[in-house]
């Protein structure tokens, strides 16, 4: 008989170990899946995890890891603050879109003037756009007690409509022959989020992602507000007795995650993506939720998880073209990762006991 026994204290060891065990389990079962598809599992795993880092073309893929991972980390850091306090912002995708629209609009409003002030203004615009979008669920929750999960999620679809409208009308490239999509900001030097050091993939979004990690770490470990966030999540009653004001916390957590998601959108639209298009958003806001949990809601963990997630995306595309693996198999592989993580999480709070069969 196998029995689950609740641990008196969550196990620190397992809390650290589960992500690693989950990755290993994903490799094993993913390998099995690839083997069933008639591919060499070792080669497939190597292509996904090794080639982007150390393969022949790693000089190209390593910078791409930063490009792909930065928005994930930036958004996930913001989400983790709220998640720790039990405030569930599921609509980062919408805040990401609104940040990109507002930020790009600020930049394009100055076109074709050149000034070093334009890009900083765009950054402010991006953060503001995301913050504003997150304030809707925040204020509705504080004033009317609505569920922030539903409101923030629904606002993603509203943001997508704004995105379509922006691409088709008020941000449409006047020189685009009637096709949807804004001017390409990569060709507008003052608004271009170029690489800080050429060839490294290190654009301003990557810099901000690292800064966000440090800030979140300091906030959670050294600051009163961080303590209140943790306390609210772990012991809501105790938090109330300790004088935590829930409304203030809700506004802060949703606002901060919205602003960070908006920043991620701005850096993406002004850099790697270059333009506002109808399909600008590719799901970073949702993937970041996985990244936040994969990283145990810990800033450093999120940094590593963002890198890992980026690795599976880039490696997955390489596996598709080199090995002919279908895209669906890669998605299943990524899904396994989260599944194993959540399943193994059980071991943090429970221990498995092999109990002797009792005789009647």
């Amino acid at each position, binding site marked *: 008989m196998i029995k689950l026994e609740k641990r008196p204290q969550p196990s620190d060891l397992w809390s650290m170990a589960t992500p690693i065990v989950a990755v290993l389990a994903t490799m094993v079962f993913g390998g099995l899946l690839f083997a069933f598809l008639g591919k060499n599992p070792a080669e497939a795993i190597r292509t996904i995890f090794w080639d982007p880092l150390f393969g022949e073309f790693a000089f190209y893929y390593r910078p791409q890891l930063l490009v792909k991972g930065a928005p994930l980390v930036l958004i996930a850091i913001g989400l983790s603050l709220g998640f720790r306090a039990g405030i569930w912002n599921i609509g980062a995708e919408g805040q990401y879109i609104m940040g990109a629209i507002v930020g790009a609009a600020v930049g394009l409003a100055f076109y074709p003037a050149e000034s070093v002030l334009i890009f900083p203004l765009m950054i402010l615009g991006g953060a503001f756009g995301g913050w504003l979008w997150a304030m809707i669920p925040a204020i509705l929750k504080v004033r009317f007690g609505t569920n922030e999960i539903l409101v923030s999620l629904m606002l993603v679809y509203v943001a997508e409509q704004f995105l379509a409208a922006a691409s088709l009308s008020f941000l449409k490239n006047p020189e685009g022959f*009637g096709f949807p999509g804004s001017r390409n900001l990569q060709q507008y030097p003052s608004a271009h989020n170029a690489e800080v050091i050429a060839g490294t993939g290190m654009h301003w979004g990557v810099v901000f992602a690292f800064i966000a990690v440090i800030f979140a770490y300091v906030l959670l470990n050294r600051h009163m507000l961080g303590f209140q966030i943790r306390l609210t999540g772990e012991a809501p009653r105790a938090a109330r007795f300790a004088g935590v004001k829930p409304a203030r916390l809700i506004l802060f957590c949703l606002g901060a995650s919205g602003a960070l998601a908006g920043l991620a959108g701005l850096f993406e639209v002004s850099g790697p993506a*270059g333009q506002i298009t109808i399909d600008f958003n*590719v799901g970073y806001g949702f993937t970041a939720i996985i990244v936040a949990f994969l990283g145990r809601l810990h800033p450093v963990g999120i940094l590593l998880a963002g890198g890992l997630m980026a690795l599976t995306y880039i490696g997955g595309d390489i596996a598709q073209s080199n090995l002919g693996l279908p895209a*669906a198999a890669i998605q299943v592989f990524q899904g396994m990762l989260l599944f194993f993580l959540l399943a193994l999480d059980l071991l943090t709070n429970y221990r498995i006991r092999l109990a002797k069969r009792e005789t009647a």
Partner: protein
Amino acid sequence: MKRTTLLAGVAMALSLAGAALAQTKVGFVYVGPVGDGGWTYEHNQGRLAVEEEFGDAVETVFVENVAEGPDAERVITQMALQGADLIFTTSFGYMDPTINVAAKFPDVKFEHATGYKTADNVSTYSARFYEGRAVQGTIAGMMTESNIIGYIGSYPIPEVIRGINSAYIHAKKVNPDVEFKVVWAYTWFDPAKEADAAKVLIEQGADVVLQHTDSTAPLAAAKAAGNVIGFGQASDMAEYKPAPRVSSIIDNWAPYYIARTKAVMDGTWESAMTWDGIAPGMVEIGEITDAVPEDVKAAALDVMNAIANGDYHPFTGPLNKQDGSAWLADGEVADDGTLAGMNFYVEGLTGEIPQ
């Protein structure tokens, strides 16, 4: 014994290397899954035709479900890095990424579908789908009893607007009372959204549903409703024959892909803008089934043949724009520039193009 095996192994490796050197590598970037049954499916059929045609002389690779934007740029770069000689990027949103990558790999040839930016090593290609829409419009106009024709638009871009205009002009020609209802799905491929759009149109009285989205969901909705007909889009969608699918527009990329691959192999490839229609076979009209009466079928085939042999252009005046202003005089034919950037409805269509 051992040495011979080793030598044989080396010889084999060398000959393999030799074969690999002579091989032309062709890459394909797809926006949807190869099993979408529509747009991406047909591009993949073209890829398979290239493999069939040249056998071991070519190696093809593809990546499916590639999001437009930075992901596309990475995938295209990856193909170029890994030695592709020719890369087909098969969605409009891959335009700027294709141009960016092409600038870094001057020796690699790129072919971008449905865009308008070219370079020394970037060609564009597209099909004159509106020619097929003229045939569809003729069938739709004659078949409708409610005089309401539903149209599922993907995005309000020139290609889609051309299709709506062409279908409407030809439906109106055979049925002056016809009315079009357009629903914008804002997706190329999303079976759930497409099914919803079809249901809305059917509820509003449409008994013919045209689609510019790539899944078979609208046909499934038409079948469920009964007495509603539709058309295969991008691919034949033959599983819905003979009704509700009464005909189809098939994108046949195979001849083009084979010709361009051959050009790269021969060293004769040059940057070009290709826009082919029914005559060269890039646009095919799928079998018109017996679910439509003989006279309808005959009228549709007449339109198709007139376009194919160059006697007739689907946008021939007199035509006015939606606001009543004159566009084409009697007998005048639309120029390709206006068609390429078409952002207006013709007279008679109701509703507004989302701007």
